[in-house]
């Protein structure tokens, strides 16, 4: 059987098909050349879904790689207000308000806007998210967003800081190292099915997000806890207005712990006042009082103007300088230079400063890093206040050497005492050890930086001995640690009243020191603002030093022993 037998009929069919084909070709031609761009656009909109891929924010670790931050994916609720019928809106508002515990007016304002996408609540708790999903409301949708959580709640809160709703750093390390932590967003174009749902694995194009780098701090979680625990005790016991503590490795300038009171829980930062968020240890200035005598003492020994056994008459507790009468907290007669520092005599120190002259005293104040920023890698550091010798009044020589008429930060004090502890080198304080990627490869490493040589090794050793005496038998006896030697200096500074006079009931109690005295491994500064009823640095701040230094040294030594035994037992 051949087609040729039916030729006329087959020709008619063929012709019909040919005409149909020609029509199709003509239509296709029109579509291809005249409506192509328009139709491609519509098709792309229907088939493709552009999605921004959020990068994972970097983790902040302590020095032993314990995570201080964790990213948890959370559901964020949005509404396509256009897709919700007006008659259903009031019911939805009532239901959501109950589950999400938000104001109905807020929801009403959002749901009645003529928009196809509007956020209702971002980063819901898993419970809230489940409850909303159960309602199965058409026009409501969820998007995954990662939320920053802080497993240690208030620990090192003023150092770590926090990131906001869009995962942008707002405080502390989170803002200072934001460019490393935030990463780079990626994007993808996914295929969509007829129901406009994303077909997950079928992507047209994709640029992967670059996750943020991890930041490793110099902070040791355990020492930070010890410092916070003790600071908390003193803050509560003495009903203080504020308190700060910094623990530093004197040889490197690495900050091992830094805490302030009052503090706050990082997981509920949005409800906290600015006063609690402020990092007082680097942002607040105060007159240091007697702890500042270490500068005068160092200058005197370095300039070889005095030696430890030189005697000074301390005027039995009352000494006139210009129009001002200077007092000691307890009257002294003749004291050696060593005893002047040990007993914290204001008159003795003033007489030493008068021997040195304003220029030398000021030079050493600057050498120890007061009056200028130490460039620590934390936001908000202030430089402090120091007056040049030309601006000194007649009584400045009796005020500045004993820690009045100057404004310093707790950080500057810990750097200064570290310079004495490490043999005379002022180290740049730093809080980030390294920045690494997700595979653990180091991207940037921060090494100790010596700012300048302040005093000689010999002077540092002599000051150490004097400060050891201050703890052993001077004003800092309550800082004596069982089993270790310690060196330090107490300070009790009167606060300035708004009218410019010194207050008689508002003080800043402080203690600066290091331990063990002969080979220091930690330097500590404790400041307590307005403690009541006791206010002496030797009574309020010295015990904090004792407890923190004792526990920290025991911990560090145990840690060292454990690490050594692990290293010994490692298979070779």
């Amino acid at each position, binding site marked *: *059987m*051949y*087609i040729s037998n039916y030729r006329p009929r087959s020709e008619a069919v063929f012709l019909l098909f040919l005409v149909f084909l020609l029509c199709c070709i003509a239509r296709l031609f029109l579509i291809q050349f005249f409506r192509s761009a328009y139709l491609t656009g519509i098709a792309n909109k229907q088939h493709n879904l552009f999605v921004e891929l959020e990068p994972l924010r970097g983790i902040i670790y302590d020095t032993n790689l314990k*995570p201080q931050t*964790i*990213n*948890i*994916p959370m559901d964020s609720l949005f509404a396509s207000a256009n897709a919700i019928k007006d008659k259903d809106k009031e019911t939805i508002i009532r239901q959501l308000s109950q589950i999400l515990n938000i104001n109905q007016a807020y929801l009403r304002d959002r749901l009645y806007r003529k928009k196809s996408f509007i956020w209702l609540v971002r980063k819901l708790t*898993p419970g809230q998210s489940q409850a909303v999903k159960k309602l199965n409301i058409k026009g409501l949708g969820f998007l*995954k967003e990662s939320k920053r*959580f802080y*497993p*240690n*709640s*208030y*620990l090192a809160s003023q150092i770590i800081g926090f990131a906001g709703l869009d995962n942008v750093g707002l405080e502390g390390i989170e803002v200072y190292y934001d460019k490393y932590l935030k990463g780079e967003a990626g994007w993808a174009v996914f*295929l969509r*099915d007829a129901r406009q749902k*994303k*077909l*997950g*694995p*079928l992507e047209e194009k994709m640029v992967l997000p670059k996750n943020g780098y991890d930041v490793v701090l110099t902070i040791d*979680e*355990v020492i930070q*806890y010890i410092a916070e*625990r003790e600071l908390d005790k003193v803050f509560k016991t003495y009903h203080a207005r504020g308190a700060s503590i910094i623990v530093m490795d004197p040889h490197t300038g690495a900050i091992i712990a830094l805490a302030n009171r009052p503090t706050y829980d990082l997981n509920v930062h949005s409800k906290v006042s600015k006063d609690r968020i402020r990092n007082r240890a680097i942002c607040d200035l105060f007159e240091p009082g007697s702890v500042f005598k270490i500068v005068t003492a160092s200058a005197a020994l370095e300039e070889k103007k005095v030696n430890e056994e030189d005697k000074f008459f301390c005027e039995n507790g009352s000494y006139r300088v210009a129009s001002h009468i200077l007092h000691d907290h307890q009257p002294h007669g003749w004291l050696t230079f060593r005893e002047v520092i040990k007993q914290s005599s204001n008159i003795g120190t003033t007489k030493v400063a008068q021997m040195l002259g304003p220029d030398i005293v000021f030079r050493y104040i600057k050498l120890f890093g007061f009056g200028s920023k130490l460039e620590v890698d934390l936001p908000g550091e202030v430089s402090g206040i120091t007056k040049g010798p030309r601006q000194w009044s007649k009584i400045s020589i009796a005020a500045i050497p004993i820690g009045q008429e100057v404004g310093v930060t707790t950080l500057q004090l810990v750097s200064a005492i570290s310079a004495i502890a490490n043999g005379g080198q002022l180290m740049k304080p730093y809080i980030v050890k390294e920045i690494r990627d997700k595979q653990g490869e180091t991207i940037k490493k921060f090494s100790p930086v010596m700012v300048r040589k302040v005093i000689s090794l010999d002077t540092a050793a002599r000051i150490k001995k004097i400060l050891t005496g201050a703890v052993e038998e001077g004003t800092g006896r309550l800082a004596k640690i069982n089993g270790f030697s310690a060196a330090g200096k107490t300070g009790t500074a009167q606060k300035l009243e708004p009218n410019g006079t010194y207050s008689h009931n508002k003080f800043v109690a402080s203690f600066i020191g290091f331990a063990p005295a002969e080979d220091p491994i930690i330097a500590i500064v404790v400041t307590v603002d307005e403690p009541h009823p006791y206010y002496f640095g030797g009574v309020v701040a010295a015990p904090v030093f004792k407890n923190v230094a004792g526990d920290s040294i025991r911990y560090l030594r145990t840690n060292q022993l454990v690490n050594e035994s692990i290293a010994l037992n490692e298979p070779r």
Partner: protein
Amino acid sequence: MRLSKFLSTVIFVTCLCLLYVYQHTEIFRLAYVGQKKEAQFQDSLDKNSILRYNRESNASLVSIGNKISGYADFQMPDGYRLVRLMPSREGLKLNQEAANRQTLLSRLFGIKRQAEAKTINP
């Protein structure tokens, strides 16, 4: 051209087209399966990060410290709260002799046994 040849060509082309369509439906079916699995995987990852957070926050020094200080308000037991237990065949038994014994001090200052602990046989 023979009709049979024409028909077989049509059938062959149709089969090819069907195969092409089948392949596409398979791609989409597998995409749905993949999507479902990806959602499950994502869900597991989410749960994992929540568990990790819970573990970290429970194991944190702050949490342990709070728990310890929560138990730290214990009282030292007074004399009358102390009982002596003796091992016996039935288990631990209250030593009646020791429990009834009053010391000279307790007689003088009136510290008397006010409560007794009773052993429970296992």
